């Protein structure tokens, strides 16, 4: 009986990269363990996209930190429509728009939005921790309740801010999951938001997760960017962006 496949002799190089190197071969093909490892990672990424955001649980997590919340939805009615029609994910549904327009808070300094985007898991797991670090750094800011948004794209934040009359919006949104990063959160900051804003008017922090940019560090950098945008009255290319390359969900 032949030997079962072993990792390649250079398997130790995996300490230098998260790439799937030195896997070994069964014949010329993948060993079973490598096949299963890949399948597990893909399943986690697929679930990140398709398992819906547990809004009551997120609201409870924020309430436990003393934060009031409002829930809204985009015009995309389900995941399938959300994936096919990014334009619908950028617009509030009518009921949500009316709900926000009827709120007493007007002309807030910033509305903070927690959005499912392409990974509900990212916002559920890292959103509350990020806010917990961020909010103490925003002393003196007038902030409406935190908005929780379903079936949301980045630009839904513009619609939310316009309906609430907020002067700035920060979207904390689940990013497109990779096999090694099913829980990556993005933060998109827009000063003077309005429907039709372009991506050039935003600043972005991406890859927010414990194994990437840790939520506490992200909160520190975000607070700095928010303050700078408020002072400048603008965001995007006009504001020095010390984040990585922008990735728009």
């Amino acid at each position: 009986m032949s030997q079962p496949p072993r990792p390649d002799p250079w398997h130790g190089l995996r300490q230098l990269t998260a790439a799937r190197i030195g896997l070994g071969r069964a014949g010329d093909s993948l060993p079973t363990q490598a096949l299963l490892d890949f399948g597990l990672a893909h399943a986690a990424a697929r679930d990140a996209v398709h398992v819906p955001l547990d809004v009551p649980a997120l609201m409870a997590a924020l309430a436990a930190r003393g934060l009031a919340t409002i829930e809204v939805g985009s015009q995309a009615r389900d995941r399938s429509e959300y994936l096919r029609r990014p334009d619908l994910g950028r617009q509030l549904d009518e009921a949500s728009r009316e709900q926000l327009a009827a709120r007493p808070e007007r002309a807030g300094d910033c509305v903070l939005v927690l959005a499912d985007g392409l990974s509900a898991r990212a916002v559920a797991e890292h959103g509350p921790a990020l806010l917990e670090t961020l909010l103490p750094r925003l002393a003196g800011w007038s902030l409406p309740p935190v908005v929780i948004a379903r079936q949301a794209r980045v630009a839904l934040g513009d619609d939310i801010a316009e309906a609430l009359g907020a002067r700035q919006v920060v979207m904390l949104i689940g990013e497109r999951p990779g096999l090694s990063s099913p829980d990556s959160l993005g933060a998109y900051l827009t000063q003077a938001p309005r429907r039709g804003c372009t991506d050039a008017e935003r600043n972005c922090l991406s890859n927010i997760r414990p194994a990437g940019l840790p939520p506490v560090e992200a909160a520190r950098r975000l607070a700095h960017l928010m303050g700078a945008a408020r002072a400048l009255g603008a965001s995007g290319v006009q504001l020095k962006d010390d984040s990585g390359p922008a990735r728009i969900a």
Partner: protein
Amino acid sequence: MGYQHVAGGHRYHFADLRAVMACASPARSGDALAGVAATSEAERMAARCALAEVPLKRFLDEALVPYEADAVTRLIIDRHDPAAFAEIAHLTVGDFREWLLRRETDDAALARVAPGITPEMAAAVSKLMRNQDLILVASRRHVVTRFRNTLGLPGRMAVRLQPNHPTDDPRGVAAAILDGLLYGCGDAVIGINPAGDSLAAITDLLVLTDTLRSRFDIPTQTCVLTHVTHTLRAIEAGAPVDLVFQSIGGTEATNRSFGIDIALLAEARDAARSLGRGSVGDNLMYFETGQGGALSANAHHGVDQQTLEARAYGLARHFSPLLVNTVVGFIGPEYLYDGRQIVRAGLEDHFCGKLLGLPMGCDICYTNHAEADQNDMDTLLTLLASAGVNFIMGVPGADDIMLNYQSTSFHDAAYVRQLLGLGRAPEFEAWLRAMGVTDDAGRLLPARERHPMLGLATELSA
């Protein structure tokens, strides 16, 4: 002038050739998003029936994107070769499909008529063709290109070694390159998508890959896939640039959104050629494309995404590239929704590119929000390898940890070589044999504890 077709007692009208083309296109989410797709299967077939009757000559008279408004249209029309076209000038789109499928239409015949085929003609006939037609015709066409090795010869398939790393860490990149080489991959190019785009970061990666290539005397080329303006700056700064990479699209406005135009591409090609780094040829442009790019840039002119993709090839062939890569499933499900749409698009792109005379490769890939998985990639890989694709990607374990999507792996390349008996670029194959990576038949040897290149691994780990 309108177009129409009667089917099932219903008369279908199409306002112009653009509408016939869009409605005739196999279903995909991007055309629905753009609002140009057929609204029923019956309408789609009626459009195909109408399209089959359209004379090829008509495409020279009715531009889908206006000549006055678009530099890509002008390039296509101004460079059209009437002498090459003469052989097929009397055909309709439907006749053209049959002409392509004749046994007499061999590599030489396809090469002869290529300068007479516009991208729109290629797209049109592809819309009438089944997957097997796209595979069969493309398999007859061998587009050979050269820089430091010879790519595209019959019975061979090359691999781009894609050693991406989320922070461009040189040791992480080198480890992935070593892994790929020891799996017999890298003849198309060792090509890195950089995470950073500063001149310093790009130069570092260019020097790293060129140093590795020189040290082991590897007959291949290296590339850092950055914007053409960055590559020009790197050339001016004296960095070792083999290939000029750029993403391109099928309309002038798409290319403007990418920050390029035809003159800039020509300037970069000339600058890289002046370095004289190719040893067996001077094909040195590396283009990437993908259906949906024009809509994504809001620059689609109401034209369907597959036709616009073919127009990008019309631009590419002007520059005699070494490699053209359709990154078929990267853009996401709003353009190609699932495995079925991705497979179809990959076969269309490969066919249209080959028909126009391009060295077509394919990044057989998907994102995690598309309804696709590695089984769909296996299907497309097997079909494209059967169709004679020039090259595919080789990503460690198919998992790109920088771009967060899945492509094909070194193992996938080994699978399809074994299945279909495909070799590598001959110069690279000889090098692998000399290095003890493969046997005389090109098969991977068992991994050795004391391989000469593993000395590098020891240095990296130190």
